[in-house]
């Protein structure tokens, strides 16, 4: 699949990706569910769920996180939930400030020393360890209360 993304400065970026049998079969199954044609929004959701930010238009424009200098996309903002306003802070600091223990910080692994914003960006790209760190940051306070 070749995708061409138009950049704000008028240039274009071309990228190529090989579509596997699994993706073809999922697409054919989707086609079979809509005999009169797949609605655009459903097709867009399918492409996003399979190819994420590699799809033109799939990567939403960046927006500044509230009260921080880190620019987060809507997907990254969603990953953080109401912690998006703390995107510039280190994961370890957020965990501790919410009542989390040293073992909670340890469970966050190397992401503990990164900012929440960096961790959210990795989580959106599919890094499971980053997703875990974000989850610990969100839930750490539960045991401290």
């Amino acid at each position, binding site marked *: 699949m070749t995708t061409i993304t138009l950049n704000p400065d008028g240039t274009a970026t071309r990228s190529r990706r090989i579509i596997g049998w699994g993706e073809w079969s999922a697409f054919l*199954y989707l086609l079979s569910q809509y005999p009169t044609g797949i609605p655009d929004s*459903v097709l867009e959701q399918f492409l996003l769920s399979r190819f994420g930010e590699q799809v033109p238009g799939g990567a939403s424009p960046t927006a500044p996180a509230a009260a921080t200098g880190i620019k987060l996309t809507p997907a990254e903002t969603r990953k953080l939930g109401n912690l998006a306003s703390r995107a510039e802070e280190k994961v370890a600091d957020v965990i501790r400030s919410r009542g989390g223990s040293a073992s909670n910080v340890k469970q966050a692994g190397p992401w503990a020393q990164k900012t929440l914003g960096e961790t959210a960006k990795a989580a959106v790209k599919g890094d499971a360890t980053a997703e875990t760190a974000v989850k610990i940051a969100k839930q750490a306070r539960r045991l401290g209360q």
Partner: protein
Amino acid sequence: MSDTPHRKLHPDLHPLLLQFQEITGQPLESVWRVYEEQSLDKIILQFASLTFIIEAEPDDDTIKFEVTSKQDPNTEDWLQASGIEPWSSVVGKPFSWGWLTINHFDALDGILLSFSGNTPQVLLTVVGSSIKESVVFPATRERIK
């Protein structure tokens, strides 16, 4: 006969547990996914006469769900998932058991579901503001060497 110490531990969870009881015995007709900013935000289980909606809570990575009267598929936003794991093997079967999962942060972040059986077949857990779907298999008996 009085209840054992392992029953009725969480009366505050009874309203949630009753949701499972409402759909008990109903055949699962179809499953739909709804994505929000690349995250799996909702899963909609269509039963014979009711709809079971499962949703991720981005602020704290917990799960919420509710039973509603049967809703017509909103094909603008809903993406058909009936033929995809973990749902393909349970569509058509009656719902039989539901469990809540509470993690070590005392967060209700998942549910286990069983269809036409008494052990879990599907695990749904919220991580990074997204519902993660897993298939649960019974262990096979190990051959003694």
